[in-house]
């Protein structure tokens, strides 16, 4: 490290400075942080590492190779856009949290060993929760706690996995881990635990509800931060540790399909985007699971593009939320009249995610599709094609249509503030640039790119797919078969822990109370008198928590001694 800082440190120092400043100075400072970080990253000598010795292991705080650098660049760009978008926010907590969060994401992807990864993994969890807390309602507090518990649990599972992995391999370096068959060996347990931890962070179906629960609940600007980092760190971790693991192809396919059905019927447009996010990550996980150079390139470049266009869509919805106070489809419509710029940028995001030629989604997603068919996954290919049509429906049409067009809600909010427009404009520019001139992105990919996106054939088939997907929607709409936007809550897998589990534990408690009452009546007054007597003697607190009389302590001691002696003489 010749005079350069560890990349995450730039953000952490920025966070410390942001905590000490306020007003315009803090705004200026925050914009400078990703720029300074970018300069630091640019001048970072190739293949830099920063090592530290701990126990018998080598910690590698910084590892700069092609894969980690691409993600680091992406996170710098995303951080700049998100900070610009949130520049009008006066909340110090969110400012500091945002920088720590972005820095942790950079730290996580540049971590060369698993323990460093774990630290940033948990930092991501802790710093991001403030965006949800900042809504300030009792509702968002509960959401934030659910989010935090699941995120921290993911880290803890990761740590347990790391321990097994380190024991089995003698190393904590974060390279390819692979997935051995589960035979109860330390290596297998380690790999599976690490994989499950990443699955939680990546919001793989049935581990995903923290995302669809929390992201729509965060602040208008917070969701933009949230959408950029957490899940993409997980995608990076999969690409680094589990490339070519067959299971991922299946999981990714399910993940690309599962959310699109929910997205169709969801009323909250930011929740639609959350489902859309899962769907896009599904594509990436398929690419990682296929594991060829082309597939990995596709997955990684799609992650890059997704951060920008999904960020753009979340920003446009954030602007709508900021101006109207809602993102419910049933309450919106017709906003293009007074928010033309936001509408335009949202459309660029919609075109990009739909993978329209010359927009960014096209140049990356098609790599994954081609890899799927070339590597002999015909069913997966068909499923992804289906999912692509689904993307057009929920992200390409539904988001802009219900917010900005559709029936006129009568609302005439002001155009978004300048800083929001600039941020959206920048993201839109990146979408179009990467879509029309993908070569710079391609050059930054981990493997040499031997892929031509703009062939007549690719463009034709994509246009066919898109045009007829839209036609189908139009047809359904005209015939009145398209589902209306209804204010509602669609239950998903979170039902298990938000309804079923409390119900079951409630039932168990009720049963226990019932049994106890039964016992009391059967045992007559004697039981309750003893209980009352015990409670009177021992105070109102819990069993072990209350102050016990000395004699009771002595009793425990005697009991333990008695038990041992019994063993000795048996």
């Amino acid at each position, binding site marked *: 490290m010749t005079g350069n800082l560890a990349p995450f440190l730039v953000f952490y120092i920025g966070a410390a400075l942001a905590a000490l400043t306020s007003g315009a100075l803090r705004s200026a400072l925050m914009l400078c942080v990703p720029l300074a970080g970018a300069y630091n990253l640019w001048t970072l000598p190739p293949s830099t590492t920063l090592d530290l010795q701990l126990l018998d292991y080598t910690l590698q705080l910084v590892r700069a190779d092609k894969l980690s650098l691409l993600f680091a660049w992406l996170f710098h760009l995303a951080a700049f856009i998100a900070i610009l978008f949130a520049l009008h926010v006066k909340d110090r907590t969110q400012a500091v949290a945002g920088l720590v969060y972005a820095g942790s994401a950079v730290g996580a992807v540049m971590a060369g060993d698993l323990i460093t990864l774990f630290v940033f993994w948990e930092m991501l969890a802790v710093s991001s929760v403030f965006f949800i807390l900042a809504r300030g309602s009792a509702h968002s507090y509960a959401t934030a706690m659910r989010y935090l518990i699941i995120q921290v649990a993911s880290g803890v599972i990761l740590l347990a996995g790391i321990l097994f992995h380190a024991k089995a391999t003698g190393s904590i370096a974060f390279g390819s881990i692979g997935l051995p068959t589960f035979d109860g060996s330390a290596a297998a347990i380690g790999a599976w635990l690490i994989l499950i931890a990443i699955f939680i962070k990546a919001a793989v179906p049935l581990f995903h509800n923290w995302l669809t629960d929390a992201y729509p609940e965060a602040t208008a600007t917070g969701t933009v931060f949230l959408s950029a980092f957490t899940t993409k760190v997980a995608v990076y971790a999969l690409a680094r540790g589990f490339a070519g693991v067959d299971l991922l192809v299946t999981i990714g396919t399910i993940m690309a399909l599962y959310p699109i059905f929910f997205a169709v019927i969801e009323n909250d447009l930011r929740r639609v985007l959350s489902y859309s996010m899962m769907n896009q990550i599904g594509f990436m996980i398929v690419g990682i699971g296929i594991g060829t150079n082309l597939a990995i390139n596709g997955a990684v470049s799609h992650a890059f593009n997704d951060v920008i266009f999904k960020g753009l869509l979340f920003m446009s919805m954030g602007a709508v939320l900021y101006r109207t106070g809602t993102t419910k489809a049933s309450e919106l419509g017709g906003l293009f009249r007074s928010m033309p710029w936001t509408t335009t940028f949202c459309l660029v995001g919609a075109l990009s995610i739909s993978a329209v030629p010359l927009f960014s989604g096209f140049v990356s997603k098609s790599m994954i599709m081609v890899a799927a068919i070339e590597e002999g996954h015909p069913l997966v290919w068909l499923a992804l094609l289906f999912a692509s049509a689904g993307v057009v429906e929920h992200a390409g049409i539904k988001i802009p249509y219900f917010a900005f067009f559709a029936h006129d809600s009568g609302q005439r909010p002001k155009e978004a503030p300048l800083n929001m427009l600039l941020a959206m404009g920048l993201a839109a520019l990146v979408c179009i640039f990467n879509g029309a001139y993908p070569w710079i992105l391609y050059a930054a990919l981990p493997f040499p790119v031997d892929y031509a996106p703009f062939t007549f054939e690719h463009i034709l088939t994509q246009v*066919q797919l898109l045009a007829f997907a839209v036609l189908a929607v139009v047809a359904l709409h005209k015939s009145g078969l398209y589902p209306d936007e209804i204010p509602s*809550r669609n239950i998903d897998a979170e039902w298990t822990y938000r309804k079923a589990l409390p119900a079951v534990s409630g039932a168990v408690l009720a049963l226990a109370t019932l049994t106890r009452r039964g016992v009391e009546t059967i045992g007559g007054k004697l039981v309750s008198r003893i209980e009352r007597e015990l409670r009177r003697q021992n105070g109102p607190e819990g069993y072990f928590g209350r102050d016990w009389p000395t004699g009771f302590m002595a009793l425990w001691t005697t009991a333990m001694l008695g038990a041992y002696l019994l063993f000795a003489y048996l």
Partner: protein
Amino acid sequence: MAKGQADPSSSLSPAAAAAAHGADGAKAADKHAILGTKSRDNIVLYVLYAIAAVSLIGDFVIHRHVGHPWEALPEFYPLYAFVSIIVLIFSAKALRKLVMRPEDYYDD
């Protein structure tokens, strides 16, 4: 391409809509037209139809590499996309019966 839809309700009562906006003058903005006026909506729709038609013809002009056996089918992509959306929407509507709850479902 993301805006090629007409609100179905607009065809139900065009007279009422026109009456509501009669004061707007010559251009007669339609409250139910998604782009402000019916004519703008129609332009977008016609463009969409044109693109769709050209892409259909393109299938016979440009040679497609066949990776999946179904791809050999003429007009495979338009067909698959159209059917996909129909299947998706109808299964999602069915899903609603299973999962839709009042908005305050979890708030107790």
